[in-house]
């Protein structure tokens, strides 16, 4: 109940101020350059990584990226830069 209340407050904040949503609600920010690079901020760790698939843990649920020839160029506590041919991105509710 408390969590729901917090979410509502955050949602209200995002709707009524110019503050970016990812900052306030701790959401992932995903930047893509064509289908070559994908840059994800605010992840919570790698669950699975292979040449065709990257599964990241998020605050809520998971993020599944599919494609080919994946290489994790950089990985930092909050950021990930993935290189390869990206085919799809999917949010999986946890």
């Amino acid at each position, binding site marked *: 109940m408390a969590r729901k209340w917090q979410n509502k407050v955050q949602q209200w904040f995002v709707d009524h101020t110019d503050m970016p949503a990812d900052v306030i609600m701790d959401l992932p920010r995903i930047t893509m350059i064509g289908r070559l690079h994908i840059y994800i901020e605010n992840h919570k*760790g*790698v669950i*699975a*990584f292979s*040449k065709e698939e990257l599964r990241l843990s998020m605050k809520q649920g998971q993020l599944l990226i599919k494609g080919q020839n994946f*290489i*994790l*160029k*950089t990985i930092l*506590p909050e950021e990930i830069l993935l290189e390869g041919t990206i085919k799809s991105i999917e949010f999986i509710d946890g």
Partner: protein
Amino acid sequence: MKKNWNEMLFGHVRVTVRGRIPEAFINRCVKESIAIWDIERVGDREIVCSLMLKDIRRIKPILKATDCRIHFEGRSGLPFLIRRLLSRTGILIGILFAFALIFILSNMVWRIDVSGADPVVEKQIRSALKKMNVHVGSLTFFLPSLETIEDELLGQIKKATWIGVSKDGTTYHVDIVQKELPPREKETGPRDLIATKEAKIRRIFVEKGVAVVEPDQVVEPGQLLVSGSIGNEDNPKFVAAKGKVMGETWYRSDVSVPLKTAYTTMTGDIYRKHQLKVFGWSLPIWGFKSHPYKEAHVDREIKPFHFLFWDLPVSYERITYRKTDTTHRQLTMDEALAIGKETAANQLLQKLSEDARVLAIDIRKRFVENGELHLNLLMTVEEDITKPRVIIPSERIKHIRKEKEKKAPAS
């Protein structure tokens, strides 16, 4: 990426991590802020990744915790590069040799420019420089300083009024101003020679013209000495009188001589120090005494080192201590008199023409005051007293005719 130069500079390794869940290994590394990049899946239970060399020790516990094994694939970066280079002494010697070569060539004389000299003098300058070892190909730290070269050249080249030596990188410039020899005396119009000052004639040398005075005669300034008109009265001819009339002249002068003098002499003992100056710090190579003599004259010679176009912050310095002795001397009256006479004579002769000489010095007055001997001298000097005066022929002819007319009624 911004990390690239970092990777180049610090050593890093490419490793294969083998384990049941390699992702766990990645997550642990990230959590412990161990840099890990370029991760690639190669097999079911294997990933390949890059790690910093300095982090290798820290991953050992992580490997244990995640039940993974590590296998090294490759090493790169500067530390490995250096290690590889060191094992190839040939390359290393080559690099060192190249640097040494550039260093030596940067400190070499490559060109000597001489400007302002005519070909003969230029040749003289070049041969004089060669004697001082300043020639193309010589190393600058063995060469004398610019001032020394200047002085030496000025001493050797008689035709030079001024010589400037400057150094511009590997090139020496010698600028010279040559003495302009006075042009040959042109044929001048008719002239007389007249006296410049009151004097008693001692000797007369006449090249052209007629002497109108005799030895032992006393002349006034402006008096005619050698006449430029020759020939008889009816048919006068005019020439430029030339000659010398040596007359006795008199000068007064006051000099003072300190009776007590302190003077320093070099004993001939020399102590040399050699040192390298690095960023303003002196690094002695040879000679470690700080003050070898109680009294000394100190010469410092600094030779900067160059590398290509840059002045290195390193220079070679040679300090020469020449031992000196200071002695006090009390002059006797006779010595002081002799010194006073000599200085007075020298001072006077500097103002007079070249063939002047002092005949006698008379002491008119002398007294000692404040430790100084004051003298009042009368000097008798023999010198050339002639000065040319232009003749205007037509006026001179008139003058001669007048004289003749004056004489005629008398006779």
